[in-house]
């Protein structure tokens, strides 16, 4: 049993600072365990959002030594003995108190995405190989670490123009669903700001579920938008065919 030094950000919207705590560390402990120990023994009002402690609910997102992580799966033994461990709330979202920040923007944005709408002739026969990639996207636990790290949102504050990587994963999971009827390309191009992503892949790096956000969701979506709006040959070919023979309707908003 040894003791480690933690510097945990305490404060609210008006401001705050790191407060130093000493924590007794046991084998296999994670950062969330340390936060709980601080709550129990030194700072009973230390505000921290958490739920499952098994990296499945996405509640305990924070920045540990500058890296966006889930606290419940950040092992203490990842940090060499003697290294001070700093824990901060996610920087991109407005802080509420201590390690809890206001993530409601993510929910507002999600609501703008037209939901799953089945094809009229859907027969619900789907093969595993057709749904593998959709299932990858649906592993998302909505931890919002990708939203937090994306420089478009984090540094450029473009939350009015860009829905963020999480939303792109959601849109991809709908667009690639074999039974979905809608075409969300216009939304992607305009409201969702897909063009603002310049493929730096920070989102992919922080995803605790290992979703290949950039390669498997964002880039294919970009390709679809390009095909739809920017490829002169495709546009020409569609004009010749007399518009879309078995096309999907263009919808930005759900029709029910």
């Amino acid at each position: 049993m040894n003791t480690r030094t933690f510097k945990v950000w305490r404060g609210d919207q008006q401001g705050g600072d790191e407060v130093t705590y000493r924590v007794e560390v046991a084998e296999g402990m994670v950062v969330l365990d340390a936060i709980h120990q601080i709550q129990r023994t030194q700072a009973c009002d230390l505000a921290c959002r958490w739920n499952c402690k098994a990296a499945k609910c996405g509640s305990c997102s924070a920045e540990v030594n500058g890296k966006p992580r889930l606290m419940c799966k950040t092992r203490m033994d990842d940090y060499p003995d003697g290294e001070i461990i700093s824990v901060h709330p996610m920087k991109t979202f407005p802080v509420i108190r201590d390690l809890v920040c206001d993530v409601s923007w993510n929910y507002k944005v999600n609501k703008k995405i037209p939901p799953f709408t089945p094809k009229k002739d859907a027969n619900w026969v789907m093969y595993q190989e057709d749904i593998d990639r959709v299932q990858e996207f649906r592993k998302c636990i909505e931890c919002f670490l990708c939203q937090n790290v994306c420089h478009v949102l984090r540094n450029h504050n473009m939350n009015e123009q860009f829905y963020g990587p999480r939303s792109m994963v959601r849109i991809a999971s709908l667009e690639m669903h074999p039974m979905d009827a809608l075409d969300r390309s216009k939304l992607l191009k305009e409201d969702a700001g897909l063009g603002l992503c310049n493929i730096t892949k920070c989102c992919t790096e922080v995803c605790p579920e290992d979703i290949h956000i950039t390669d498997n969701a964002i880039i294919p979506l970009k390709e679809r938008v390009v095909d739809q709006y920017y490829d002169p040959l495709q546009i020409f070919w569609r004009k010749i065919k007399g518009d879309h023979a078995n096309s999907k309707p263009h919808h930005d908003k759900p029709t029910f």
Partner: protein
Amino acid sequence: MSVEEKYEIHEHDVIVVGAGGAGLRAAIESSAMGCRTALICKSLLGKAHTVMAEGGIAAALANVDTQDSWQTHFQDTIFGGKYLNNWRMVELHAKEAPERVRELERWGAVFDRTSDGKILQRAFGGHTYKRLAHVGDRTGLELIRTLQDKGIHQGIDVFMECTVTRLLKDGDRICGAFAYWRETGRFVVFKAKAVVLATGGIGKCYKITSNSWEYTGDGHALGYEAGAELVDMEFVQFHPTGMVWPPGVMGLLVTEAVRGEGGILKNSKGERFMERYDPKRMELSTRDVVARAIYTEVKEGRGTPHGGCFLDISHRGAEYVKKKLPSMYRQFLELADVDITKEPMEVGPTCHYIMGGIKVDAETGGSRVPGLYAAGECTGGMNGANRLGGNSLSDLIVFGKRAGVSAAEYGKKKAAPEVGSTIATQIEEAAQEMTAFFGRPHAEDPYKLHIDLQNVMQNLVGIFREEKDLSKALNKLEQLKHRARNVGVAEGHRIYNPAWHLCKDLQNMLTCTVAITKAALMRKESRGAHSRLDFPNNDDYWSGHNIVVKKVGEEMKIEPHPVVQVPELKPLVEEKKAKEKK
């Protein structure tokens, strides 16, 4: 100042407390029927414990084992519940689960597929046929996300990180709820004609549990205080396979799907010990049997270094394991440095689920309090003395829908409640209860009290019970209740203050634990998840009775009630009893 001036007030036809599978499904149905619906949840939307369910949704779709039928599902559930279930609930569940699963698919859920493109189903403990529709080992996430994404486009008002502390009544009738915002600590009053409780379980009452932070038996306590009956409270399910090492992850769930996909249990001697406990079903026996088996192996000195047993799936091959059990693979690798494709896991029993809860009518989900409905884990009766894996997720969507329909029908019929003087008094009492936790002189520390409570339950009201331990527990719980009247936090802020929240949660946990312990004392037999060392056999009387808990005046009264049977289903039940005797 009037109530309207003092507090934030919201008015709806129906409010649903809890946004897991059952709550979401109820809210979706209620709003689809045209009622103004509020959904109130303690955590962020989409993060209720349903998200952690791993195994699958049990439904007699017969996609893999074509001989499957609702009748067999009914029989399996009744046998799992050791015949104490509410037969009508089990019947409705078995009949309606397949349609509820297909409905999820129509709402965008993407289940693993058979080779001919249909929903794949896997084997699970106690199910005669392969019945569990699943997505790898993250079915709960799929379910809650599908319902969440459906629900948010229906005009439901969602109140996230809002905790209900009291239900409000207009005479006998429910008329709303009092709550606080976790973020600001400010109070909020919800006026409603009908309330659906869908608040999940009580895991946080135990030291070793798979449950998340939220599960402090709020709905059980709210319902009890409002006059509803609780049933089957003695039946607490200890899932046989929780992690045991390192200490920080003790209790975390290791899905039954590991055994469903071929995982085998061994003791420290390398024996496949389930042969001695249930040679017919082995690792896929019902959870109560497996939990007791592992506990016994460890107690008798055949446990692993960290006090569990070995669960091994490495023989299935790395590719298969990573494909079908990806989150188990990661969980063990990242949190315990164990590669399950190469080595066995150490597992042991963990408090996982409570079969007991608010007694409801099978068809409507209605409690005996007019306007109060309930669905999901916070209800009792569906699972009897022991729940089969996979039956919870299906329970949520079948009875979530039914409760939503009934609450909506009630909400449409009734006039809106008045915020008269009796309700104003209730509101002030509820506010007083919360503010009184601040600035108490020599206040009890809520965290210490919580640990003490968890230790009492873990040590004295666990897998194996006996009279002297249970009586001792009851005494200790009374002392804890006394201490809890003086629990408090230093004068300070109410902004997202976890110690303050815990002060109230403790009151709910104490109500539930006293009910559990009293019922455990009364049931002098062993059945399903309730094992009495001093009464190791079934008892004829108790085989036909459930135990009901209710508030009479200020006292908690408990009494037996006959099991709710359905005459037409008797042949099915008798057939199963005969089969199991062989």
